[in-house]
């Protein structure tokens, strides 16, 4: 199998994600040890591994504990569970379920995996840089994250690259499902698992650009001295923070972060629903109850998930209008969740149920997801969220959704589909030990957290609240929870052994050999490229909309805003419009367009250098920060377009593509790209020079 084959990429995603799952798990164990015995020396071999910088005398420093918290969340969400749920399962099984020979863009698919791996290595390697890894939580809230150590840069770069990787993956899944289906497999007949992966891809495509925009802003704040998230008069350690222009808004980060952050919850949940649906229908020997209704629910959930983000921000004082809006949308989105879970339960009705390992995990998913979902309702109400926000209750709520929720569904999927990989099912006895051990220990860990949170213990305390009177009764529970975490670790050993022992044996007879299927022939040959480009443009629209919303939020929120930029960039504007106008199917036009676009980039660099000479910097004030950041991101898109246009005129043309349908399709698609880049530029110059 080649490195671009969907099964290879799926396996690469799976193995890497399981590796990161182990990393996240180890970080969790270290946190649990600290919470159970705060201030007490760690075992000698552990403290020698952590070093004196993190645990002098074997006692863990609060700064290192904060790194564990931030990186546990980031690794688990971004590097382990999402890549396993979306990357591994979608790549391996979506083409198989729709009868496609491979993903629509195999090379893009492989690039998506390698970019994910690079991003993961960058993020995790930050433990070894000066000051350690990111330590502002997986949410990286500003302004704290802006003034943190170097590890935060690694986190931001990693997140940005993960965004690129996710968009590549999302485009691939959606185009594959639309244009690589076997004839007769209509949208209405698509398996629910495939639908769940399509909606997941849609969310990644449209929501991740917001976090990319936010990470660009935060990198600018950290490296270029801008103040996107830095308010005026900020005091750090009782001293006014020097050297920043101020005027920024920390809530801008929260808006952009949660615009991804909340859909990311559905990115975690929807593939899990799809897997559980597969496992339940197989082992209950019943078709899915209300397939159409479930598809409608998953689509509604996906759409609505982009309109609920600020329910994470009720305590920020963002005003009653926004609070009311997001409270209502949050309660509306619970309706499709209930439809999905009810349909899965109803599928069991009248079924002939086999209680094998995958089915046990799938059945456990239902109440665990139910507990996680129902306990989210008080958090979606602004009034009760005031009391529960940032307590252990929140930790319990989202862990019920993700750990015994999504992770159980992923285990169900691994046990269910393992024979497709090796031809042999996994050992049932070991599987059941794995299930019951995990089920009991996970609940022992997470259930007490609800009570600890209701008592009012803050979830970010390094010593689990040892210095607070109201937390005293809960300290002993923390110790029990840590023992349960050790048990959870022990119960993963049968699983690991099961996988390794099974994989090492010769392939069995049941292994699904790749069947050479041809793609549905009814679509035009260039349809995939066209849809791929449209989807990319949709993602780019969201990136620039996120950046522009930052500008609007800052400008609208400023009592005083500097005068608009005086000199209109006529030369750049003419060059860019000319680059789009000259673009065409002849080689001469392509070369002209390529040259004009490159000239635009060069002129842009020179005009910025002139501004620098005049003493204008991104850090001068918020207006310049916005102008430089937004136009630099735009210029990067122009440069990308110029390179691609050059490739169309050069290597691609010479390879005999000039007359080919594929080449023609690339030219047609790139023409739309130039139109998009021009529209963005015109919006920017109007916003900064005219309005």
């Amino acid at each position, binding site marked *: 199998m080649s490195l671009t084959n969907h099964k290879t990429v799926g396996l690469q995603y799976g193995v890497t994600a399981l590796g990161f799952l182990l990393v996240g798990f180890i970080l969790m164990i270290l946190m649990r040890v600290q919470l159970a015995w705060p201030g007490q020396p760690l075992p000698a071999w552990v403290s020698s591994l952590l070093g004196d910088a993190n645990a002098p005398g074997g006692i863990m420093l609060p700064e290192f504990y904060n790194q564990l918290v931030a990186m546990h969340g980031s690794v688990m969400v971004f590097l382990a569970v999402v890549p396993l749920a979306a990357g591994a399962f979608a790549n391996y099984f979506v083409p198989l379920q729709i009868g496609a020979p491979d993903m629509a863009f195999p090379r893009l698919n492989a690039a998506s995996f390698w970019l994910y791996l690079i991003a993961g290595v960058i993020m995790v390697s930050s433990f070894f840089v000066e000051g350690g890894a990111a330590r502002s939580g997986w949410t990286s809230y500003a302004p704290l994250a802006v003034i943190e150590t170097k590890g935060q840069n690694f986190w931001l770069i990693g997140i940005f690259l993960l965004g690129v990787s996710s968009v590549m993956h999302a485009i691939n899944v959606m185009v594959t499902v*639309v244009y690589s289906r076997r004839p007769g497999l*209509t*949208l*209405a007949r698509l398996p629910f698992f495939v639908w769940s992966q399509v909606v997941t891809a*849609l969310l990644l495509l*449209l929501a991740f650009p*917001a976090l990319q925009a936010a990470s660009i802003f935060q990198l600018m704040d950290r490296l270029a001295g801008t103040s996107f998230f830095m308010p005026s008069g900020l005091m750090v350690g009782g001293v006014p923070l020097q050297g920043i222009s101020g005027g920024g*808004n920390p*809530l*801008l980060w929260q*808006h*952009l972060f949660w*615009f991804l952050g909340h859909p990311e919850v559905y990115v975690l949940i929807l593939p899990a629903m799809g897997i559980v649906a597969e496992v339940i229908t197989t082992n209950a020997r019943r078709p899915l109850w209300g397939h159409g209704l479930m598809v409608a629910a998953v689509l509604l959930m996906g*759409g609505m998930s*982009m*309109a609920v983000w*600020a329910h994470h921000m009720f305590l920020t*004082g*963002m*005003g009653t*209008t*926004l609070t009311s809006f997001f409270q209502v949308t949050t309660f509306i989105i619970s309706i499709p969740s209930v439809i999905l879970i009810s349909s899965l339960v109803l599928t069991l009705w009248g079924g002939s149920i086999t209680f094998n390992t995958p089915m046990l995990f799938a059945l456990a998913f239902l109440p665990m997801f139910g507990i996680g979902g129902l306990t989210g309702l008080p958090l979606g109400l602004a009034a009760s969220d005031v009391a529960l926000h940032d307590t252990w209750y929140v930790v319990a709520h989202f862990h019920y959704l993700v750990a015994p929720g999504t992770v159980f569904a992923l285990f169900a999927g691994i046990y269910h589909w393992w024979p497709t990989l090796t031809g042999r099912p996994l050992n049932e006895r070991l599987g059941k030990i794995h299930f019951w051990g995990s089920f009991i220990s996970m609940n022992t860990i997470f259930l007490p957290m609800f009570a600890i949170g209701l008592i009012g213990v803050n979830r970010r305390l390094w010593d689990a609240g040892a210095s607070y009177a109201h937390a005293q009764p809960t300290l002993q529970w923390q110790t029990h929870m840590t023992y349960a975490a050790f048990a959870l670790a022990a119960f993963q050993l049968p699983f690991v052994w099961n996988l390794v022992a099974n994989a090492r044996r010769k392939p069995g007879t049941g292994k699904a050999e790749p069947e050479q299927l041809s793609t549905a022939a*009814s679509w035009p040959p260039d349809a995939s490229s066209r849809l791929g480009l*449209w989807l990319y443009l*949709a993602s780019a*629209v*969201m990136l620039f*909309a*996120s950046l*522009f*919303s*930052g500008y*609007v*939020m*800052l*400008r*609208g*929120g*400023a*009592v005083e805003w500097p005068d608009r930029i005086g000199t209109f960039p006529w030369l750049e504007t003419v060059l860019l419009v000319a680059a789009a106008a000259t673009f065409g199917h002849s080689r001469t036009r392509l070369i002209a367009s390529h040259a004009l676009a490159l000239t635009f980039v060069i002129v842009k660099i020179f005009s910025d250098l002139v501004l620098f000479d005049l003493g204008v910097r991104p850090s001068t004030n918020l207006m310049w920060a916005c102008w430089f950041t937004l136009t630099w991101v735009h210029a990067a898109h122009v440069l990308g377009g110029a390179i691609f246009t050059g490739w169309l005129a050069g290597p691609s043309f010479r390879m005999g593509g000039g007359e080919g349908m594929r080449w023609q399709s690339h030219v047609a698609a790139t023409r739309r790209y130039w139109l998009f880049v021009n529209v963005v530029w015109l919006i920017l110059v109007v916003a900064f020079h005219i309005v």
Partner: protein
Amino acid sequence: MACPICVSPEGTAINNGMRAGAAVLLIAAVMVVSAIVRFAVRLWASERADQKTA
């Protein structure tokens, strides 16, 4: 009594800015999702038409 921070010129401006910024994000999301829904509906309709003729 109204919150003194919220009714200050700064507080009012920040709230207005946030509403406007959030609206930009929402509008962009609605536009893009609508375009994708339109594409999906057309695809579904063409499939139905194909099935009927077959």
